């Protein structure tokens, strides 16, 4: 079992650009959640996808959007990048309404 996999592992983008991050959930999981972790802080919930729909959303602007595919994998898109978007982006997968989520290794995004 490969666990939760994210790609790419590192990414450097310029302000104003757009970025897409990808996540493949753990085998048997159908729910994907995305978190942003700024340096020195705890992760903050961005949104959650189940059955290809956004189910819950945290306090993030519309520049952050996502998608879930029929195979349960997910993408996080960020438009009009700001310097403050530099962070570690974590994907977590779980079974819907289950008690435990498993995190991927994260994508380190640097905006310059």
């Amino acid at each position, binding site marked *: 079992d490969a666990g939760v996999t994210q790609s790419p592992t590192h990414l450097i983008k310029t302000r104003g650009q757009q970025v897409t991050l990808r996540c493949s959930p753990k085998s048997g999981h159908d729910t994907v959640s995305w978190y942003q972790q700024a340096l020195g802080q705890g992760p903050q919930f961005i949104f959650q996808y189940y059955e290809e729909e956004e189910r819950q959303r945290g306090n993030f602007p519309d520049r952050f959007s996502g998608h879930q595919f029929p195979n349960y994998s997910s993408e996080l898109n960020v438009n009009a990048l700001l310097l403050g978007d530099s962070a570690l982006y974590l994907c977590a997968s779980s079974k819907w309404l289950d008690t435990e989520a498993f*995190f991927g290794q994260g994508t380190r995004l640097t905006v310059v």
Partner: protein
Amino acid sequence: ELKVEQNPLFLSMQEKKNYTIYCNYSTTSDRLYWYRQDPGKSLESLFVLLSNGAVKQEGRLMASLDTKARLSTLHITAAVHDLSATYFCAVDEYNAGKSTFGDGTTLTVKP
């Protein structure tokens, strides 16, 4: 809005000493998680606590949950250097995958 507070935020311990990290949260919840994070790495799940009075132990770490006090503790027994990391507690309001995290406790164990 659910708030999760950890203390202390930084903890420097000597090896073989005991200490406790505290996690307070602001609304009713019966799902609390403890994670470990090493520098530059992702989150490693340590404990899942699902009911009032739940206690779980793994090696030198023991976690407990008091839902009435809205308090969880992570107790470290006879610390060793390998435990140096940042520890996060997280609370779910609804289901797994939408967690509110504390700011983390950075633990340094010194010889």
